[in-house]
């Protein structure tokens, strides 16, 4: 029982990272910290795939003469290379949005930003004034 539980410790790490990442995304109010959480969340998935591909005693999948060689599956690694690229693109886009939010709002805390948004939103609905100015700009 214990050996089988500890034996899959890779999956435990995946599980912990996944929950830490998801918690950061949901629980943090800071836009930058949310992106950190998202990256951790995605990294946990990379680890999950890599773990699938590993076989005990498996070698890299390079053809050799002996018949009894056990090969590890290379496909998950290839998939994860793609997923890493996607993850980098997501992070880059997210960070650039955070930069723009910071320069427009002067803050990257969700509370500050949504407080400003709320004022703006009601202003616009009642008078349309703020937006007229924005259009002239």
């Amino acid at each position: 029982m214990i050996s089988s539980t500890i034996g899959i410790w890779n999956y435990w790490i995946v599980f912990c990272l996944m929950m830490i990442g998801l918690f950061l995304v949901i629980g943090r109010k800071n836009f930058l910290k949310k992106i950190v959480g998202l990256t951790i969340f995605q990294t946990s998935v990379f680890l999950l795939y890599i773990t699938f591909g590993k076989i005990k005693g498996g070698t890299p999948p390079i053809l050799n003469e002996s018949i009894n060689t056990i090969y590890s599956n290379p496909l998950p690694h290839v998939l994860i290379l793609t997923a890493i690229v996607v993850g980098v693109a997501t992070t880059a886009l997210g960070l650039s949005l955070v930069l723009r939010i910071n320069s427009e709002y002067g803050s990257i805390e969700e509370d500050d930003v949504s407080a400003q948004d709320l004022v703006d939103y009601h202003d616009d609905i009642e008078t349309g004034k703020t937006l007229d100015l924005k259009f002239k700009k």
Partner: protein
Amino acid sequence: MIDILIKNLPIIVVLCPLMTSLLVVLIPNIFFSWILTTLSTFLTFLFSILLYQEIQIHSHISYALGKWMPPIGIEYIIDKVAIIPVIIISGISFITTIFAYKIMPEEIEKKSISKVYSLWLLAIAGLMGLVTTGDAFNLFVFLEISSLASVALVAMGAHKDKQALVAAYNYLIIGAVGATLYVIGVGLLYGITGTLNMEDLTNRISDLNNNRALIAGFGFMIIGIMVKAAVFPLHIWLPRAYAYAPSAVSVLLAATATKASLYILARILFSIFENSENLINNTLLFVILPLSLLAMFAGTIMAMYEKDIKRLLAHSSVAQIGYITLAFAIGTKASVAAGFIHMFNHAIIKGGLFIAITSIGFYIKKRVTINNLSGLGKEMPITFFCFVICSLSLAGLPLTAGFISKLYLIKASISSDDIWIAILILISSALSVVYLWKIIEVMWMRDGRKIVIKENPTIYISLIIVTFLNIYFGLDASLVVNASFEAADKLIGDLK
């Protein structure tokens, strides 16, 4: 020559917008970049129609990418189901591109317009790839291509209103979590089956009844796609993203983006997991059905209290997505067909409504709120006439496309002995009249400020096309209905 073209059509409809998007970014001139974009979307639409004709003959086209035979290589599949979203996405994106020409320079800095067109084509390519691919992991890549491009497009609205940045940020974070959940699901399935090809997955899953990893993988995939499709409690990103995006972008996203994900949802439910009947039936009954009913009412009620018209339409989109998922949830052949009919009709209805609203925004140079609309009906008769037609279509009045989809949806729910669902659909449709009437009343019955507006033909041409489609498919729906029933036939098959 033409043979080679026909043979490679499934990949060409993806590559055509993808490759031109790389080209468009190099052209600094607004007009030429628009021409190239229009040409590319038109060609994509043309190829989709060719593909439609091809499907009538062969009914299933499988394309092995790079001649690597499936299930090892990546496969592109076009069948009677996939052709419906292909036609919707390519057709609507062509109409929206025509509309974008005048609207874009109004809201986006001149120097970045060609980059916006490039992202625009990239989003379309992502969506086309999403619906044509037959490989579960390749689907994730296209999901991210389309959603990253749409996030960047939404963020371009920051030139007009800084709230677009926050909207885009939320869209990005929620979308990325959704896509990652989908990847976890695919990973779990790959772990137990050792394949990524969808057809191969279907076969291998049938031996694994009640495997716990299978059920977990299914759950992750469904949740991930439901985030992207904006099914009710996971729709939070949608209203803001649609409301603050540049006008042309909201039209494109509202009409196409969620449709692709809804198609994937149907594909997962009825095609990949068709052999685990118990799992699917439970999911449909205890997850999708209650959520769709909630979506129908929550979306409609949110729309009733909304004053910003673009947000109002976005909330109404949530309700309409509820109808489509409800149709899937009933799970009979007729109801799934009704879901596809509504998928098509909703694309032209919401496309029309968004085009009308954004062109009003173009003329009055303000955000379109309920107060800003008063009395404008008399100033812009063509735009408002089209708006009213599309509204009636959304509410489901006879002689419009919306009526056909409601008709088939109600017929399907009655024939599967769910009278109460039919009644709830009718109540929700009646409620949708409340918010539509609110807009129409303000436009026609109130006195407005005296502003003279000259309607621009380049803007209302696409509106007229969409309105015409709304009436045409209300009068003669045989094309859509037949295609949808064939699709449902293919999906449900001998399951029920």
